[in-house]
């Protein structure tokens, strides 16, 4: 076990940090939200710097990296609260596609790496609440091996600028069966698809996608009929880790911004850093940050474990990072005082990002409940050893 970065990884992180601090600071992209959080020229730069390729295999046009590379980048994005849809397109959709269909992945992911294709994952639904297998969107047989899609998808991250949608739909089974979920890749402007773009409070954008009789054929299939769950799980696992890594970046920067503020802001004739109660609060923030970072490492280590152990580790991570992130960023505001709740100062945006984090891929409470179910079901002996 070795927590040190390789030279390549260090280079990737350092170049990302330099670029983002120079080009993507909070101040610089005040107008980004209005533009859908997207800048085509910037996206081309992401591609050029190899970020879209960093965590994809070489036969898909990638650089042969893995989740570590995605996490490194996401942590840097977190520090700067980058709103570009890297996560939705470059992690969640890309990794799902990779796992769903090897042939299509080899065909399409090189385009994604080059910045020429922007698929988004249209999977989440209003009543999903963290449950991957929750799919009520229907794929109804329409003869000749075709289907028509009917349903509504929400929180399609990056959906506002997507040119393709990976849509999960039910070809059989009930709303929470793992079996019977089928993935389709469809064009963003296919007839029957309606999109409403939604700005989130953290200034990232998502879309609500309504499918009303969208016609798809077997040529649009990703993987086998009814077997989409495994690819979704694969993509969600990596997406969750990347999200947690981003949150670590969010927390870390929020902590240092607050530290710097305490060292300069005066009240009662002295700088705030001299107050013991505030010092201790910041010590707690550091502890929470470092526990969260450890959780991301652990989740990455457990990716190779069998499904049950992997899912437990992911739940552990999402729960802990969500709890820590809320604490750290809320205290970041609190220690700033009034300026912390203003839109023009940075610290509040860190809190907003963590608020949305809680509503993505299952809240801390959802994941605690998943772990609780395991506690009741599994024999204690097995748990004690993993």
């Amino acid at each position, binding site marked *: 076990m070795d927590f040190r970065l390789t030279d390549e990884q260090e280079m990737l992180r350092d170049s990302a940090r330099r670029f983002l601090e120079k080009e993507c600071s909070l101040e610089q992209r005040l107008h980004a939200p209005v533009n859908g959080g997207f800048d085509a020229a910037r996206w081309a730069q992401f591609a050029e710097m190899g970020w879209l390729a960093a965590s994809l295999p070489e036969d898909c046009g990638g650089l042969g990296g893995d989740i570590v590379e995605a996490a490194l980048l996401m942590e840097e994005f977190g520090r700067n609260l980058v709103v570009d849809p890297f996560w939705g397109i470059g992690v969640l959709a890309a990794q799902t596609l990779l796992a769903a269909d090897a042939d299509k992945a080899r065909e399409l992911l090189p385009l994604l790496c080059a910045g020429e294709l922007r698929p988004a994952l249209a999977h989440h639904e209003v009543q999903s609440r963290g449950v991957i297998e929750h799919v009520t969107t229907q794929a109804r047989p329409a003869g000749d091996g075709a289907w028509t899609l009917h349903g509504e998808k929400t929180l399609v991250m990056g959906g506002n600028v997507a040119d393709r949608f990976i849509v999960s739909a039910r070809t059989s089974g009930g709303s929470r069966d793992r079996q019977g979920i089928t993935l389709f890749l469809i064009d963003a402007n296919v007839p029957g698809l309606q999109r409403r773009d939604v700005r989130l409070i953290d200034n990232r954008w998502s879309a609500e996608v309504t499918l009303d009789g969208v016609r798809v054929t077997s040529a649009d299939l990703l993987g086998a009929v009814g077997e989409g769950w495994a690819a979704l799980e694969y993509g969600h696992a990596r997406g969750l880790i990347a999200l947690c890594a981003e949150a670590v970046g969010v927390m870390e920067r929020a902590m240092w911004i607050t530290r710097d503020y305490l060292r300069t802001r005066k009240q009662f004739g002295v700088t705030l850093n001299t107050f013991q109660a*505030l010092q201790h609060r910041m010590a707690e923030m550091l502890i929470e940050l470092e526990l969260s970072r450890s959780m991301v490492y652990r989740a990455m280590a457990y990716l190779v474990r069998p499904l049950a152990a992997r899912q437990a580790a992911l739940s552990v991570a999402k729960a802990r990072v969500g709890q820590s992130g809320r604490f750290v960023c809320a205290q970041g505001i609190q220690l700033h005082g009034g300026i912390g709740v*203003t839109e023009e100062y940075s610290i509040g945006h860190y809190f907003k990002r963590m608020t949305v984090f809680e509503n993505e891929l299952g809240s801390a409470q959802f994941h605690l409940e998943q772990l609780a179910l395991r506690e009741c079901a599994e024999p204690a002996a097995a748990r004690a050893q993993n």
Partner: protein
Amino acid sequence: MDFKLDPADEAFRQEVRAFLKENLPPDLARRGACGFHPIRADQRRWQRTLFERGWGAPNWPVEYGGTGWSHLRQFIFDEECALAGAPATDNGGLRMFGPVIYTYAGAELKARLLPGILKGELYWGQGFSEPGAGSDLAALATRAVRDGDEYVVNGHKIWTTGAHTCDIIGLLVKTNPEAKQRGISFLCVDPATPGITVRPIIDIGEAHSLNEVFFDNVRVPVSNLLGEENKGWTYAKAVLENERATSAEVPLNKRKLAQLRHIAMHERSDGCRVIDLPGFAPRLAQLEVDLRALEWLTLRALTEKSEGAVLPYGSLLKVRGSELVQRIGELTVEALEQYGSYLYAEPGEDPDAKPDWPPGPDYAPGVVADFMYRRAATIYGGANEVQRTIIARSFLGL
């Protein structure tokens, strides 16, 4: 000890409830129940209705046009109004400044200022904090120099709630720069006076209630001085004490908890109500427990007040009340899931404008904006850290 509710008080509750049912317009109630800052037009309309009923100032003595109600009745009244979704009345005029005016101001100022508050025509802004004087308020630097019958004011205030819509500002100024607390005076300033510039501060809920106010050679008549020169610190402390006395905001918290229940019973996960998801209801129950504790601590504060309270109730209530509103907001945003992430921007002051909001259930708009704004609850009115120091020093003798 006697814990029985007086039947007359219970009858009073029914009377208030009936009045609200009859007189609170549904559109006001709908807007009042959501989390956005109240619309000034709604507030004026509602205050006028209350005034006409003789209930314009529940907490003032009868001689100034108040109701003369007991603390308990005021509490019942506030609770019923909140649960019915009535717009918040002007906390500044009615609770913070009004009592200071009728206690400390001269007859002329009283006659000039109090009726407007009662009728909803005179809204107050609080010009206390400055960039360099937040928790350490006495460090304020805004200067007022006497020039004949006027003061000339120069300085810079911040966090002035409603400065962009208020009719008068309660302003703390330094009239003697040599002294600290003893060099502070209290002026009542018309925000339309030349030399005053208001700059909006947008909060992290993307809403506008706060402002910066700049004073550049602003001339204020000496007749607008409250009480005596250099005694402003006394009046300011009274204003802040009035602010803290209601700072547990039990009625508000009750409304918010009722809203959370409503949302948790209507949002669903694969058909199952969110309130029935494992683990949700106990967290809701914990909030109910903490709200009830706060409610009864408030009742004690109200009834013991007349006895000369020893406990620093204001600080106790401020700390837990502000924490509670944040915790209720947190669970409400969680209950909304994706709708708790959507940006439903503040609709603005025009009650008839239709905002271009993202889709979602009726109860979604305003929730996350309010959750964001309420991060300030543990900061404004004296940060909770300051309250803890007050408690430790004043009561515990540490």
